C-alpha cells in the first residue's frame, strides 16, 4: 500500500504541470527548470529551489541525467562584473534554510549534451542528497518560472 502511494505521488505532482514540487525526506525540491540551448551548444544548466525549512543539515552530493556525458555541480563567483564559473564537490543545504540554484549562481551543469534542450520538453534528473537520499525530479525546459 505504501509502495502504491509512493508510485502515485509523482503522478499527482506532475499533474500540477510547471509548478512541480518533489519531496524527499524533509527536503522539497521546487520548480526544476533548464533554459533551452542553441543547436551548437555543448553545455546546459538546470536550476531549482531546495526548501529545507523542516529538516536537518544536508548536502547535495551529485546529480545524474542521461542528456549529457557529464553532470556536475557548479557555482559562480563574482568579482566586479567578472563571472567565474567553478565546479564544486557538494552544495550545502543548511537546516531551516531554502537554497536557490539560479542563473548567475549555483547550477547543475550538463557537459557534452547529446541533443539540444528544446523548449517544452522535460527530462528526469536524479539528485543524490547525503541524508535525504536520491530523488528523481522532472526538469521542465523553458524560461525561468515566475514562482521563483
Amino acid at each position: 500500500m505504501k509502495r502504491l502511494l509512493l508510485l502515485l505521488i509523482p503522478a499527482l505532482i506532475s499533474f500540477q504541470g510547471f509548478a512541480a514540487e518533489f519531496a524527499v525526506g524533509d527536503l522539497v525540491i521546487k520548480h526544476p527548470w533548464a533554459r533551452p540551448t542553441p543547436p551548437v551548444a555543448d553545455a546546459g544548466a538546470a536550476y531549482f529551489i531546495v526548501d529545507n525549512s523542516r529538516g536537518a543539515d544536508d548536502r547535495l552530493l551529485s546529480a545524474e541525467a542521461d542528456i549529457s556525458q557529464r553532470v556536475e555541480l557548479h557555482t559562480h563567483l563574482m568579482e566586479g562584473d567578472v563571472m567565474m564559473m567553478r565546479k564544486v564537490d557538494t552544495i550545502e543545504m543548511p537546516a531551516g534554510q531554502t537554497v536557490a540554484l539560479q542563473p548567475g549562481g549555483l547550477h547543475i551543469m550538463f557537459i557534452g549534451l547529446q541533443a539540444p534542450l528544446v523548449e517544452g520538453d522535460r527530462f528526469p534528473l536524479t539528485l543524490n542528497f547525503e541524508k535525504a537520499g536520491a530523488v528523481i525530479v522532472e526538469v521542465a525546459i523553458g524560461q525561468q518560472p515566475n514562482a521563483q
Partner: protein
Amino acid sequence: MLNKQLLIIVLGVVSVVAGVWLGRYFLPQTETAEPEINGIYISPSRKVADFELTNQSGQPFNQAALKERWSLLFFGYTFCPDVCPTTLAQLNQFHSRLAAEGLDEDVTVWMISVDPARDTAERLKEYTAFFNPKFGGATGDREEIDKLAQQFGVYYKIHDPEPGADYYLVDHSSAVIVINPDTRLQAVLTGTSSTDRLVEDFQAIRQHYDATQS
C-alpha cells in the same frame, strides 16, 4: 567652548550638503545632463582603437562594422551555459522592445567570443541566431580579441582543464559595451538589470548623444 565650535562646523557641513541636495532637486535639469545609467557613462566618449576580427559570416569585423550605428558588444563563449545565454536572451528582449517601437534599425548586438579555439564563425552564427537572427558574432586571433577587450576594460581568463576533465572554463566580464555612431566608446553597462532598465538606459544614452550633436 569646543562644543560650540563643533556645532558650527556640523551646521556648516549640513547646510552645504542640504544646499547641494536642494539644488539638484529644484534646479531644472539641462538637456545635456549626463544620463544616470546602470554602469559607467563615458564622457567624453573615447575613440575605439583598431582591431581586426572575423564575423559570423566569415567577413572582416573591424571599425567599419561599427560605423554610423549603435553597437552593443558582449564578450563570452558558446560553451558558457549560464551567463551568456542569460545575457543574450535579455539582449534579445531588449532588441525586440526597441523593434516594437521602430527604434532598432540602427542598433546591432554583437557577441564577441574570447574562446576562438572552440568557437568558429559558423558556430557563432548558429549560436547567436538562436537568440536573435539579427545578432552578430565575431572572433579571431587572441591578439586581436585582446586589442578589442582591453581597450574597454573587459577582462577574461581561459583556464586549463581541471585534472580528469575534457573541457575548460573561461572567466569573463558580463559587461555590455555601448559604441556610438561615431565609433566611440560611450558606455559600459554593468550589473544585472531588468530589460526595462536596459531599454531605459540605452534610450537615455541615445537621447543624450542626439541632444549634444550640433
